[in-house]
């Protein structure tokens, strides 16, 4: 899929661990791992909103389109 998830990069910049983000967002670490590895088929707006709120970033910081 040409959509790249840069969640690891943003997490590192914010000095935040995956399980902390999962707790804040309210999803399981397994689901967050699916998202990070790019195995997810879709992302809900509510999840994206919660991630952006927790990481204080824009959706474009997390998602990147690579043709």
């Amino acid at each position: 899929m040409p959509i790249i998830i840069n969640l690891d990069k943003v997490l590192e910049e914010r000095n935040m661990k995956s399980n902390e983000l999962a707790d804040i967002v309210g999803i399981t670490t397994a689901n967050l791992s699916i998202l990070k590895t790019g195995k997810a088929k879709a992302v809900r707006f509510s999840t994206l909103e919660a991630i952006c709120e927790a990481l204080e970033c824009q959706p474009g910081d997390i998602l990147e389109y690579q043709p």
Partner: protein
Amino acid sequence: MKSSVLLRNIISLAYYSFIIVGVAVFGILIFTLIWDENMALEIFKNSDDFKITSVRALISLLTYSLISFGFWIYLFRLIRNLMDSLTSKSIFTKFQISSFKIIGQLLILVTVIDTLFSFIFEIIFTDQVHIKTGFMNFWLLIVLGLFFIFISQIFNKARLYKEENELTI
């Protein structure tokens, strides 16, 4: 889920009935081949639905019936396994999809071969064999087989939707 239990029991009953009848047919065949040729013939001579008047025709028909019973027993076993799988926790699995497809294909195949062979036997053993085959039964089984294949396609689509839903974060 009472209806599923009832259906499972009916399928099991049909499965075991076919096994019993299959064993009985095998017994009659062995008895006819080894001991007495005419005794079994007496039973079929006066039958309305399955009339046979010669030993040669009887042996051929019993042999074919045994093969056919084998297929039907296998078919009922597949349906039973499928029922068990459907009533378990997971649904839209690859096993269920392939089972629906195989059952449908096998149902059509066995129905067509059964009908074809009954015609062939009537032609080969003219006036020695008379098998009553319901025309409606033939179409009903073909439709049922196609329906099973259709269900397998629906399950395949549902599996994709389920997978997509599970991978939506």
